[in-house]
């Protein structure tokens, strides 16, 4: 019994300590799935987001940069066109002046006037002698005193180069009624005065109107702008020119002047700004685009916000999904666990009906089958134990059958009265040996030798009682004798043969017992030539249909049960019988020789 307990612990041991409980919670499927899934998903989302962010941000930055460069390029182009136009005007004026026979003809003045009026950004056209004397001016105004011509770059430049020179932006102080910021174009030209060839300096001033218009439209983000520098670093155009002129703002032009064509990041004002420089071929002016980095980054920030929102949604979604998913997986398992716990606590009738994933359902189904099997086995064990107990009790009873003892002693007394001392001695000897083997120190298992001795003693005793009404012979192969057998299996059968087969027989009966080894099996046959049995009785013997009235009370069925329980159901008794011919009972069981069978020892403990 206790061995079975070890195999089937009815109450599982309680887990010890709270710490174990907590860690078991952390190790739960749901937790693990949730955490793993979330971690992986979040990690992936974050990595992807960062990669996307970097990629997009870089693209946005590049695009902004490219865009800016294109805009500046466009301004550059427009300005180039403009300067070219101005050049053309200058050349036209020069042409007219050089073609006119005399510089003071009204026609020339008129032509130049017309030329000037075609462009509203032309301020004045004037011709000076190299000494600084005014020869011609359009429109005609009075020239001021103290013009300091010699200090002005437009006046000095033509003596150094034959190209049209563009002056830095300056205040034109030549003529009355105006102080205008202009850029001066000047060059040495030939003219005729009264038929005499002369050299003079032709000056054409233009104001910033067109340049402003061209540059003002440039929008590089909200705060970005473009400005124009002349080669010396003077600002030709700047959206905040007044502030710069007033010294309130500062533009870091030094790095700009070093390059003709460049894009770089400037941080001199404390703010990150992208600077793009292009240079006008004709005037050497530099168009400088300034874009604020954090405005380019506005796109980045939008991206940021989007990605942050996206991440939040993804993370939330993933967490919810993983919680749900893990719950879906874990809850049937938990339910199963709870049910199994109930079973473990002893309620074997708990039905297990868990729905969920396929695996869990299968598990639950298998578990149900197992439980069913366990229940069957339990029932069987209970039945077998009961039978065994009953059988053993019967055996115990048969060991000290008082009826048999009484009869035997009666026979002894009778023999003694008649003075048959020898018989008495034989009788008492047999009786004593009979009982010794019957008890056999309480062992359940004895050798076939002992069992055969036992039955011999029994038959000796009975033969005195039945007064030679029968004979008996016991034959056994030598090799059979040491094998094991359950004790007292022959006596009930022999008893049956005596009381039911031979006692009522008028002739002398014969009981022959044969034991032999046959293919690993012990075969003991008990033959009698008595009355025999009808088919019905024969069939009823093992199923318990008929019940023997007298005898030792240890039924044939009991023998069969015991053999079956001990050796297995396939072993036991078989009967052959014929009315008036006799009956043969054959006992078959495996040949076992092991003396130290644990079951034998178990059985040996008094019960």
């Amino acid at each position, binding site marked *: 019994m206790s061995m079975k307990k070890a195999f089937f612990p009815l109450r599982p041991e309680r887990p010890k300590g709270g710490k174990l409980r907590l860690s078991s919670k952390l190790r739960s499927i749901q937790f693990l799935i949730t955490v793993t899934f979330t971690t992986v998903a979040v990690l992936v989302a974050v990595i992807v987001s960062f990669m996307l962010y970097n990629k997009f941000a870089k693209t946005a930055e590049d695009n902004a940069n490219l865009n800016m460069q294109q805009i500046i390029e466009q301004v550059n182009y427009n300005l180039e066109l403009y300067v070219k136009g101005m050049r053309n005007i200058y050349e036209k004026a020069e042409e007219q002046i050089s073609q006119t026979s005399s510089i003071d003809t009204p026609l020339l003045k008129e032509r130049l006037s017309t030329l000037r009026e075609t462009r509203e950004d032309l301020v004045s056209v004037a011709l000076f002698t190299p000494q600084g004397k005014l020869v011609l001016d359009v429109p005609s105004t009075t020239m*001021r005193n103290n013009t300091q011509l010699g200090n002005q770059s437009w006046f000095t430049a033509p003596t150094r180069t034959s190209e049209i020179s563009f002056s830095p932006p300056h205040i034109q102080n030549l003529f009355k009624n105006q*102080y205008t910021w202009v850029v001066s174009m000047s060059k040495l030209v030939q003219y005729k005065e009264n038929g005499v060839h002369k050299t003079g300096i032709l000056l054409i001033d233009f104001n*910033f109107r067109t340049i402003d218009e061209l540059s003002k439209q440039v929008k590089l983000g909200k705060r970005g702008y473009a400005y124009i520098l002349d080669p010396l670093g003077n600002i030709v155009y700047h959206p905040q020119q*007044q*502030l710069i002129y007033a010294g309130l703002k500062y533009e870091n032009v030094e790095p700009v002047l070093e390059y003709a064509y460049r894009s770089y990041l400037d941080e001199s004002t404390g703010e990150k700004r992208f600077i793009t420089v292009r240079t006008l071929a004709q005037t050497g002016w530099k168009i400088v685009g300034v874009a604020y980095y954090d405005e380019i980054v506005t796109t980045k920030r939008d991206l940021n916000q989007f990605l942050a929102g996206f991440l939040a949604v993804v993370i939330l979604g993933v967490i919810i999904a993983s919680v749900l998913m893990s719950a879906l997986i874990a809850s049937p398992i938990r339910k199963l666990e709870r049910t199994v716990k109930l079973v473990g606590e002893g309620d074997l009738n708990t039905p297990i009906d868990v729905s969920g994933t396929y695996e869990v359902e299968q598990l639950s189904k298998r578990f149900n089958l197992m439980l069913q099997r366990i229940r069957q086995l339990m029932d069987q064990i209970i039945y077998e134990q009961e039978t065994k107990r009953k059988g053993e009790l019967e055996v115990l009873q048969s060991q000290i059958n008082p009826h048999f003892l009484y009869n035997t002693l009666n026979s002894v007394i009778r023999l003694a009265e008649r003075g048959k001392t020898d018989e008495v001695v034989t009788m008492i000897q047999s009786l004593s040996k009979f009982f010794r083997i019957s008890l056999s120190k309480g062992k359940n298992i004895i050798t076939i030798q002992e069992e055969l001795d036992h039955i011999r003693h029994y038959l000796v005793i009975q033969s005195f009682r039945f007064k030679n009404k029968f004979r008996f012979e016991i034959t056994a192969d030598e090799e059979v004798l040491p094998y094991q057998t359950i004790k007292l299996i022959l006596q009930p059968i022999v008893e049956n043969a005596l009381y039911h087969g031979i006692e009522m027989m008028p002739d002398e009966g014969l009981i022959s017992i044969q034991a032999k080894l046959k293919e690993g099996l012990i075969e003991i046959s008990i033959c009698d030539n008595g009355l025999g049995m009808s088919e019905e009785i024969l069939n009823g013997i093992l199923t318990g249909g008929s019940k023997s009235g007298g005898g030792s009370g240890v039924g044939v069925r009991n023998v069969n049960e015991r053999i079956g329980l001990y050796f297995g159901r396939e072993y036991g008794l078989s009967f052959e019988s014929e009315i008036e011919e006799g009956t043969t009972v054959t006992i078959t069981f495996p040949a076992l020789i092991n003396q130290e069978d644990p079951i034998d020892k178990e059985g040996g403990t008094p019960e």
Partner: protein
Amino acid sequence: MKKVRFGLTLLLCIALWVTVTSCFSATPTYIGKSSETRNIHMIVKMNRGEYWNTVKQGAEAAAKEFNVNLTFKAPNSESDVMDQIQMVEDSITAKADAIILAASSYMGLAQVVDKASYYKIPVISVDAEVGSARVTTYVGANSYEAGQKSAERLIKLLNGYGEIGIINFTNSSSHEEGESSSSMDIGARDADEREKGFLNYAARYPDVHVVQISYTNSEIKDAEDLTRLMLIKHPNLRGIATLNEIASQGAAKVIQNSELDNIKMVAFDSSPAMMELLQDGTVQAAVIQNPFSNGYLAVKHAVEVTEGLDVPDRVDTGTKLIDLENMLWPENQKLLFPFVR
């Protein structure tokens, strides 16, 4: 149990979100760009004249840059002290975020400035200070120094001797012709300071006599009359110093028309007309201020004050002496003609 878990999950989400988002956005801050429009009231001495126009343009440039709703107010004349006081009162009633004031009278405006500060409206002085301790900051030139510069140049032009007449401006009606100032605090602070600077410098030269100080009421016509009177009264006059734009224009006109070549003149403040006179040789030199900067910086600092930033107590925008020789220097061109268009 379920609720707790949900709460924990939510918490985790928020924590993650915060972590992720904090990696990104860092909002940049620069003044005037981030917050709402401010109402700044600018009250100057007069609604005419090149000088005040330039101040106004500077202020407007700053207003545009710093997202300011600028209200520009000025009386018709520099002597309209009462008008100006009323304008400050109006600005207080209108709950301006800041008031920029060029006080026509040092003491006359003091009380109303105190009142403004009582209503927690910061007041910024521009050009002319006001006699109140409540003024947050002063933006403008050092008038005393400007007066000294003027005197220095004029005395140099006169070779250190001769009679000098001064044409100043002030709103105080108590100043009568020929009197030297008796109660300085009633006049405009800048006018007084310039005069003081001039006189103190001139006092070093025993041969230099300031024979007359006339006060114009910001009309060119008036200045012309005063100049003529002065010339009649003092035929030996060798030099004239004028201490503001209107006075300069008036005096220069008289000198130009009367073709008095021997009279040297040092003018004050720049205007295209004045530059023409300077180039002509009518006026030998001019002390110029930075009206554009004054207007611009006044508004800029007003914005800073409303944003709770620290501003300097005094911002000196400087003065410069311009003559024929240096007027075409590139840096002076920019200063004299800040308007390119």
